[in-house]
């Protein structure tokens, strides 16, 4: 009796969800779906995912053992021509000697409504393609037949992956609305997968345990006098964990300016193998918390052991360092030594490509080659240096403990004054001023003993842009003067990147054309190559277009071409945080001499604006002293990242800043 009850209960459990998801089945396209003209919740949508279901299941293969099989089916509605691109679908797959995946498309059909009847057009072989992208990857593509405005398309594909630990990422959101998206992962009790979810909205999660069994056919050859082969037929019972994620009515994603990386805000889930525990075998922990993630990475052959190699550089470095004893000088010298000797080949990664020794010899390597070498050198010079795992901006934010969260590594030196972060892959990087790609929330420092610590990667030191300018206005309104601009930290890095981009005369052409066509002369640059010092540019300028004579009066903007005239924040609603990258201060000290025979008629009023929570402040001060005006303007933003809740305030703040910076001085004849 008891057994029956249990059975019937599980029957209900099995049936119940099916009843709800009945229409989400390939081939069951309804007339209502075909008739629909616009998406009910987003009339601007060019297409929508009516449903998409994915199952990644670990299956037992007699030859290969456990493998990962992923099945995906989808139904997509195309409302407008702009949505035609959704009729082309593609799936990439691994295609290298040690890892060959197989992808099959099937059940691909286009549905149209013709005179009130459903017309089906099946995809034939002339619409499917297999492209060998490179030595490592292939791409299966399909293009659906007979697609028009109003069509519904359906397709199914499955991926067989011989490596059971690989689970494809699943996005619940994309650039069009998603009505229903479901992802299921199922694996036997011998494995534990860790999910990593991202986004601003999250799917519902349910987990069930299913009893399962496999039959393993094996044979054993006896070793007695008469050799005999025995066949075994073992039935093994195990419990399968099945987790289902369901997302309903997720809106389309829209990209915005000043967003770090839109992928960080896409609702999605990734899975990573964290534990393997077969009976009668030691448990293999891969990643359950940050410490075990870090420990696993540290033990990788192309990570930890690479840090211990020192022989290849010791002699060269000793010679290079000479008698330097000061800590900071040592750090600076070693950073330059690596920068000068090994060039970045453009590949990221926290594990070495060819190894530090080869990279040193070839003078080129990937990020790990370079920065692990740097760490090893710092250590060998007696500093407490450790690698810091980083996820770059393009890789997204590392929120949950897993190995794939990282794709980059930098070095950190522990000093009494705190950590000094270093990256030798970029020529303009200096201690604590890292390339922009690495400024992405938090990194993880790994010590020799395997312990780890979270490291804040976002800069807190203000990068300055300070301008000193003095100019004369003559009686015709013509302006001439001198400017001196000094940039520190990240602003200096930007300046150096700009200097590098063009030769000097071209740079000057740009400087003139971007600044109301002033004529520049006596241009000079200081510290272009002295990376630890601020960059300084000085020049003389003149321009007839910097003031206006209206009705015998001179109207001039006291900040001339330095005035910021346009609000960078134009959006009405902000979906994601504003990411400036680093805190900054723009400061202007301006001295203006007005022509003889003129007097000030109107001056802009001094103001001071402050945002809440000390997020930023703006000061505008002007003083008249006979025929000389003194102006001081400061715009300071104290946080690298501004949340969406603070967007309205930021926009208003900038509105005030821009209005003040566009105000003019009026000079009249006396």
């Amino acid at each position, binding site marked *: 009796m008891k057994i029956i009850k249990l059975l019937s209960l599980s029957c209900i459990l099995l049936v119940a969800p099916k009843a709800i998801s009945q229409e989400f089945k390939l081939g069951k396209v309804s007339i209502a779906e075909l008739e629909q003209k616009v998406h009910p919740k987003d009339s601007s949508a060019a297409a929508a995912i009516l449903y998409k279901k994915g199952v990644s299941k670990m299956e037992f293969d007699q030859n290969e053992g456990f493998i990962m099989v992923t099945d995906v089916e989808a139904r997509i509605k195309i409302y407008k021509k702009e949505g035609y691109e959704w009729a082309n679908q593609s799936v990439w797959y691994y295609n290298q000697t040690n890892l060959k995946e197989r992808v099959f498309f099937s059940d691909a059909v286009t549905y149209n409504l013709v005179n009130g009847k459903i017309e089906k057009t099946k995809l034939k072989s002339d619409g499917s393609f297999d492209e060998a992208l490179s030595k490592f990857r292939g791409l299966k593509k399909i293009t659906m037949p007979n*697609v028009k405005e109003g069509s519904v398309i359906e397709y199914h594909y499955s991926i067989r992956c011989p490596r059971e630990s690989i689970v494809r990422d699943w996005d619940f959101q994309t650039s069009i609305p998603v009505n229903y998206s479901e992802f299921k992962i199922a694996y036997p009790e011998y494995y534990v997968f860790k999910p990593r979810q991202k986004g601003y909205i999250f799917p519902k999660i349910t987990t069930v345990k299913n009893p399962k069994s496999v039959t393993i056919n094996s044979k054993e050859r006896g070793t007695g006098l008469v050799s005999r082969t025995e066949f075994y037929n073992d039935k093994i019972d195990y419990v399968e964990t099945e987790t289902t994620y369901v997302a309903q009515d997720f809106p389309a994603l829209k990209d915005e300016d000043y967003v770090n990386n839109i992928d960080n805000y896409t609702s999605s889930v990734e899975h990573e193998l964290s534990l393997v525990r077969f009976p009668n075998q030691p448990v293999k922990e891969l990643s359950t918390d940050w410490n075990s993630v870090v420990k696993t990475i540290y033990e990788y052959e192309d990570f930890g052991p690479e840090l211990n190699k020192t022989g290849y550089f010791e002699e060269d470095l000793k010679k290079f360092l000479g008698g330097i004893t000061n800590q900071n000088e040592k750090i600076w010298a070693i950073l330059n030594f690596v920068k000068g000797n090994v060039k970045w*080949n453009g590949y990221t990664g926290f594990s070495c490509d060819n190894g530090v020794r080869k990279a040193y010899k070839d003078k080129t390597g990937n990020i790990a080659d370079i920065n692990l070498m740097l760490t090893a050198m710092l250590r060998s010079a007696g500093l407490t240096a450790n690698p810091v795992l980083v996820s770059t901006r393009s890789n997204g934010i590392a929120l949950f403990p897993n190995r794939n969260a990282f794709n980059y590594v930098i070095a950190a030196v522990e000093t009494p004054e705190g950590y000094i972060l270093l990256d030798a892959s970029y020529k303009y990087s200096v201690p604590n001023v890292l390339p922009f790609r690495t400024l992405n929330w938090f990194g993880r420092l790994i010590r020799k003993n395997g312990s780890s610590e979270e490291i804040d990667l976002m800069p807190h030191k203000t990068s300055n842009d300070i301008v000193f300018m003095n100019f004369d206005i003559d009686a015709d309104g013509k302006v001439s003067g001198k400017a001196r601009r000094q940039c520190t930290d990240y602003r200096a890095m930007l300046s150096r990147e700009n200097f590098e981009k063009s030769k000097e005369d071209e740079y000057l*052409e740009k400087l003139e054309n971007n600044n109301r066509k002033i004529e520049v002369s006596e241009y000079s640059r200081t510290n272009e190559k002295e990376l630890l010092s601020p960059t300084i540019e000085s020049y003389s300028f003149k321009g007839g277009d910097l003031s206006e004579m209206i009705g015998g009066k001179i109207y001039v903007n006291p900040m001339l071409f330095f005035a910021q005239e346009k609000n960078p924040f134009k*959006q009405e609603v902000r979906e994601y945080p504003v990411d400036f990258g680093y805190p900054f201060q723009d400061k202007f000290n301006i001295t203006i001499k007005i022509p003889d025979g003129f007097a000030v008629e109107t001056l802009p009023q001094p103001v001071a604006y402050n945002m809440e929570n000390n997020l930023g402040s703006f000061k505008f001060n002007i003083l008249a002293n006979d025929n000389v005006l003194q102006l001081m303007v400061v715009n300071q933003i104290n946080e690298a990242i501004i949340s969406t809740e603070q967007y309205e305030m930021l926009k208003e703040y900038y509105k005030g800043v821009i209005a003040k910076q566009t105000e003019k001085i009026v000079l009249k004849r006396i």
Partner: protein
Amino acid sequence: MKKLFCALFFLLFTVNSFAQKNDYSVFSISDSLKDNANAVLRLDQMDITIASQRSMNIKVQRVISVLNSKGLNDVDGYQHYDKSTSIKNIEAIVYDAFGKEIKKIKRKDFRDQSAVSGSTLFSDNRVLYLDYTPISYPFTIVYTSEIETSNTAFIPQWYFVGGYYLSVQKCALNVTFPKELGFKKKEFRFSDFNIKKTTETDTQLSYIATNIPAQKPEDLSPSYGDLFPKVMMGLENFHLEGVDGKATTWEAFGKWYGDKILTGTTVLPEETKVKIKALVGDEKDPIKKAKIIYDYVQKKSRYVNIAVGIGGWKPMMANDVDRLGYGDCKALSNYTKALLQVVDVPSYNTILYGNPYKTDIQSDFVSMQGNHMILAIPTGDNYVWLECTSQDDPFGYQGTFTDDRDVLVVKPEGGEIVRTKIYDDKGNKQYGKGNYSIDKDGNFSGTLAIISEGSQYAQKSRVETFLPNEKEEHYKEYWDNINNLKLGKITFTNDKENIRFTEDVHLSATNYGAISGNKMIFVVDAFNQSTANIKRIRNRKNPFQIQRGYLDTDEIEINLPEGFSIEFLPSNYELKGKFGEYKTEIIKKENNKLTYKRSMFLNKGKYSSKDYDEYRLFMEQISRNDNAKIILTKN
């Protein structure tokens, strides 16, 4: 044993002597070649050997000294290949600044990748490319490659100037060919450069050019291909993906294309023919029939490009397009032609260069040219041109992608060069009519109707397909002279019959008028500011051109706030010159109302480098006057 040793020794010796002969040190480059150069082509040599109509071998040698990181792109260490083009060998050797060899990159170290570009869904084109990380600058790369192909329809065009910011020490082209294939060539713009023709016989052609300084790009210049010397080459008897071809005259070439490539591609299923006949009904007028069919194709099809083998040149079968509902420019043009045939409307496949920068089929050089196909429907002495890849374009509209250029129309009796539609400058119209009000705090609110025609229709009508956030972004960019802009209701009217696009926009903004003391200042011309920022260029060398002219007229009513009086009004302004005409006028009305009228007409044309500054000043004066301000005083 002894012998081997000898041979080895000999080998070493020859390599060594070769290295001595070729000086790859960068210190021997003359200063004049370093001027403005990011890289110097020490040697740029191509040896083309045409063995027969179906066999061409091309050897490339590029010795390039890269002076800085910006010159890295000029290495050009890549080679495309596919089923009919094989790479016989490819190799690169890197030398340091002193000319000492530091690295050898063999074929297996080149990266192999599929070369399916953006708008193509699938093709069998692949590429081998050099992936080298420089360890210091400057350095020199000696790149060599050799390919063998059965396609002789395209002999590469030869440019003596390798690119911008790239100087050339020595450049050599050697071509050999059997005399019976009808080899021909055309030379362009040799006069200002030191180019020598060293051989010209009925089986050989060679050029050498030396010491060509680096060129700088300049705004509004003709394209690279229209500016510098080049040689076009071709065969009268060529081969293309399994088909022999003839290019003696355009007529013969067109006939060949029609007979060998197009024949048999316009077969349609019977039921489609019946459907089309029913759709057209009793309509007799060929143009009206064509309109019905064009509309049918636009609704039915989409652009998908699959280029495999001859499929890169031969259109997909019309019945396949009918079944699949997609195809590339050739497939969709040809499909439309097939449908037109059903209702007895003749039309012709037309080969051309599709590009907003107007590019002609070189009419005096008969050869395989072009990158796009449209359809031509004859109308007496003229043609209606159909862009069959667009699902939105009005019937017969050419926009800026295929207008005003020489094209090849493929008629059954042969090919013919024809000029496509020229949009008259004055017909490229934008007319704005609207009003705005300023309140006592300087806040702005207004409405505007913008009507666009001619080539301006192409730029504007795409706004209709934008998503709401893209639309907002577009208008905030278009009126970036108005800070704190807020958009109200926006409606569009797309009149495809008359090719006229109307935008009706409501907008408002705080703080448009800047208040200082008891004065308010604001720019009169809120809606249509000239955006052309014509750069000042020191010592411009190249001629410049304005490819399309336009005519903008605006009539705006302005309501000034109550309680203010006008202290200053900009005076009326007029500017006339060879580049165009510009005029603004402000008319004072009663009750603090003004009417602002503006017209701006720009001529298309080709001008010399000397005219550039005059053009810049012309545009600057316009931009200055567009910024003229009104000053109001509080009563």
